[in-house]
Structure formats: C-alpha cells, structure tokens
C-alpha cells in the first residue's frame, strides 16, 4: 500500500509537485499520467526514496519513507525511466547483486531458483550469462524490469515499463504486471495510454505538479463524455441523410465528413447539450429506411479523456 499526503517538491523556483495526495491499496494497478514535466518522474522518485520532498509524507506498507527509509524501500521494486545498471556485469551476476543489496534470499539455491523463474518470466534465460553492456535495448529493458521484480516486492513502481520491447514481449510483460497486480500495489507511468487503459483500474492525472484527476477510466470517461456529439456512418447519400435528420429534435449542427465506404456517408452531428443525439438520430434514420452502420465518438478514448482533462484545467485558469 502507498499513502501519499500533501507531497510538495520544488526545484529552485519551479514547483514540480504541489500538495499531491493519493492512496493506492494492495491489489490495485494505478496509472500515472501527465504531460512531460507534469511531475510524474518526480513523484516516482520521491515514492522510491531517491528524492526527498520539501513537504508531505510517503508511507509504503505502513513505513514512513522519511523516518524509516530502509524498511520502506525493502518493499519496493522500482523500474526507472532510463534503465540503469552496471554494464560490466553479467545479467545473472547483476540480479544476484540486487538480491544482496535488498538483503533477500540468502540461501544460494533458493535465490538461483527465484532468479531462474524470473529469467523465464521476463525472457532473459538465453542471455543470463552475457554482459549487460553487450545486450540490445530491449534486453536491457528486460534486465531493468527483472531487477524491479527481484524478491517479489509488495509495491511496484514502473516508469515506462514496456519501452523498447517488441510487441510479443509487451504482451507478456503486461500479463506479468497484471498477475503481480493481484497481490501487490502497482503504480505505472506510461505514455502509451492504451497500456494504461488495459492495465489500470485507476488513473491519476498530474498537471503542472497538481493532481487534477484521480478516478477509474470509466468514471473519467463519464466526466468527459459528450453524448450530444456523435459521428455516424449511414448507408445512403448526403442528401438523403440531410432530409432525414432535418427535423431531429435539438439539432444544432450537421456536418458531412465524406464517403469512407462505398455507398455510405459519414457525418458529425451535434444536438443541444443534455440530449443524447444517438437515440434521436437512430429513430430519424430508421423512419427514412436509412441503415445506420455505426455510431462513434460518444465514448471518449483515454487519449481524449487525458487531453480534455488537461485542457479543462487550462481553461479554468483563463
């Protein structure tokens, strides 16, 4: 479990974090989103004890990072944004060093069994005796990921966990995160929003060091959903669609987007706020025997949600 209370951090004049508070329970996978410079890496660095906050507190599994850093750090597995390791060490040697550093698995046999299982999980078995400096970027990322998982930590903090991996490896790593997330607390920062949507039950959005959203992707989607704005694809001509929709209740605008499929037309429709354009459009088209092939745009993608949240914040400052 991670408990963050009123975390603030400044770099000289610049405020990197401004009284950020949140809590992540065991068994939760939470995504941390924000534009570049929003404070994601600073947050992660503070959570892992790499940086100290100017004010506020971080508790990891009940241990205060400021007062008992050793005990708090023992529960954390951290994958930094830039994989960091000693290039002159072999993969197996490096992970043994991490075990020593974390003071875990003193029994050599048990340790090697644990490491072998880890190598197999992250796809490092074939290169475990190679020097890290000679590995490709993808393999280095896997080594970095493996060091975060050493000792099955109760809290995983992952900064861009799948960067540099091939698509099949990305799927495997995501599955691994999902499995670990059942018993551990996981915080992920990623610019791949589909990854966040796929993995996370909750999303934290940072903007200029402030936490501007903390909710499930579904609830965030509701906040940004605009059911009065839809796009449709109809089998028929633009003229037929215009005729069919001209008397639609609350119609504000109808804009044709062209023909993307033979014999069909795409259109963007906006009705008055508070109405659901989809229902009225469906009835109007049905009455005119114009098949509605699909409706889209009312369900916001995570990209839309993220951008709308960030823009909304900007607008509120104006």
């Amino acid at each position, binding site marked *: 479990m991670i408990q963050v209370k009123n975390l603030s951090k400044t770099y000289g004049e610049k405020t990197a974090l401004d009284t950020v508070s949140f809590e992540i329970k065991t068994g939760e996978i939470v995504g941390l989103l924000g534009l570049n410079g929003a404070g994601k890496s600073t947050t992660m660095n503070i959570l892992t004890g790499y*940086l100290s906050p100017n004010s506020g507190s971080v508790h990891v599994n009940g241990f205060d990072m400021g007062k008992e850093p050793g005990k708090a750090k023992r529960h954390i597995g951290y994958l*930094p944004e*830039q994989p*960091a390791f*000693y290039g*002159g060490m072999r993969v197996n040697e490096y992970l043994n060093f991490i075990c*020593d550093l974390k003071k875990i698995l003193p029994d050599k046999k048990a340790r090697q069994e644990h490491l072998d299982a880890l190598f197999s999980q992250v796809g490092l078995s074939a290169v475990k005796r190679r020097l890290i400096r000679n590995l490709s970027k993808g393999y280095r990322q896997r080594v970095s990921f493996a060091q975060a998982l050493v000792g099955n930590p109760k809290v995983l903090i992952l900064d861009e966990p799948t960067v540099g991996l091939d698509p099949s490896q990305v799927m495997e790593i995501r599955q691994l995160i999902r499995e670990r997330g059942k018993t551990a607390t996981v915080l992920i920062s990623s610019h791949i929003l589909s990854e966040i949507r796929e993995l996370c039950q909750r999303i934290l959005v940072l903007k200029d060091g402030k936490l501007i959203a903390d909710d499930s992707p579904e609830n965030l989607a509701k906040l940004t959903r605009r059911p009065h704005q839809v796009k449709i694809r109809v089998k028929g001509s633009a003229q037929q669609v215009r005729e069919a929709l001209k008397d639609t209740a609350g119609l504000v605008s109808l804009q044709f987007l062209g023909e993307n499929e033979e014999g069909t037309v795409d259109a963007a429709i906006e009705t008055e706020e508070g109405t659901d354009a989809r229902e009225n459009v469906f009835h109007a088209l049905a009455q005119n025997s114009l098949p509605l092939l699909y409706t889209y745009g009312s369900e916001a993608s995570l990209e839309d949600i993220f951008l709308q949240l960030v823009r909304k914040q900007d607008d509120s400052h104006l």
Partner: protein
Amino acid sequence: MTAIFKREISAYFHSALGFVFCAALYFFTGYYFLTYNIYNATADFSSLFTLLFPVVLFMVPILTMRLMSEDKQSKTDQVLLTSPVSPFSIVLGKYLSALCVFLLAILMTLVLAVVTEVFARVDWPLFIGHFLGLTLLGAALIAVCMFLSSLTESQVIAALLGFTASLFLFIMDALTAMVSKGFLYNLFYYLSFSKRYQPFTYGILDLSNVLFFVSIAAFFLFLTTLTLEKRRWS
C-alpha cells in the same frame, strides 16, 4: 554495505583498473627496492617508503576516479539510493573496496621484506611502522579523492581533481616555507601529509599522526555521504 563492497572489488578486477594500479605500484616498489636496497645491500626500508609517498599521492586518484562519478553518470546511483542501504553504507562499501585494492598493491613491500629476511635481518617493528604509515596515508588520500569523485559525473574530471589535490598536498611543505607565520602557515603546517608521514619512515609511531590520517579519512567519508544525501534534496 557488503554487497557494494563485493561489487566494487569485482568491478576493479573485471576491468583493467585494479590490475594496472597494482602493477604500477609493484613496478615502483620493485624499482626502488632494487636501487636502494639491493644496490646498497641494506635491509632498511626507510628510503623505499619515503619514495613511495609521491607515488601513492599520484596513483590514488586513478584508483578512486570512477568510485562515485561512474554511478552518477550511468544513473546506477538510482539503483543504490532506492535500495534499503543507507548512503553511508554505500560510501563505506566503496571506500573499503578501494582501500583493499590499495592494500593489495602495497603488500608487495611486505613480500620484499620477507624475501630480504632470508638474507639479512629486517627491523620488523620499524617496517610495521612504515607499512602502517603508508596504509594510513592511502586511507586518508582515498577518502579525499573519493569525495572529489562524488562531485562530478566525469571520471576524467574526478581524476584531474584528485591529481590537483595530490599536487597541492605534495607542494604543501614548499607553500609553508613561502608564507609568513600566521593562519595560512599554521593551516599548511598542520595539514601537511608529508610532515605527518615522515615520522613513520623514521620509525616513530606518533598517535597524533595516526589520528590525523584517521580523522581526514572520516571527515571526507562524511563529506562524501553528505554529497550523496544532497542529491536527494536537489
């Protein structure tokens, strides 16, 4: 601390650095032994240890240049500082590894003394005094150069800073002679590594000199720990 110590020792001998450092000191030790002990047919090691003073001054920066700066440059300090190891343990582990390599390098003097013992009588209490003096000099100098290494992420700059510090220590006696009596004179006089080291080569074991080198080492280890801690607040 043990994990870091083991890793650093392994790093010294996985690269050429540990071997080159030992080989260079073995060379100078062997050369001075040949020219002073063998040619003069003497079992007195005072000259050898006196001549090793500048060698150690200029070799130690090479030994310590990567100790802290490498972690800063390759971001492995992130791995160390997010592990459940205190900054002081990190510093101590690295320091002890460098000290061990240094001891391994000056162990050649002991080997030569044992060989000499076969042919002549070595004054062992005097030799142990010499050896202790050189060890303490190395211990203090490693701490100073390690601190300098923690100030930069470039190994070259770390080495240059170390050489500058060594040069300063080397010419400190000359500086003492150049300044009139006063604060600077006293400062140079009391901080002179050479003046503190010389009594060991005369066979004088003065506790104040032992304490001087130990205090210098402790002070700079403390400063290095502070530098590491400071990174968390920057």
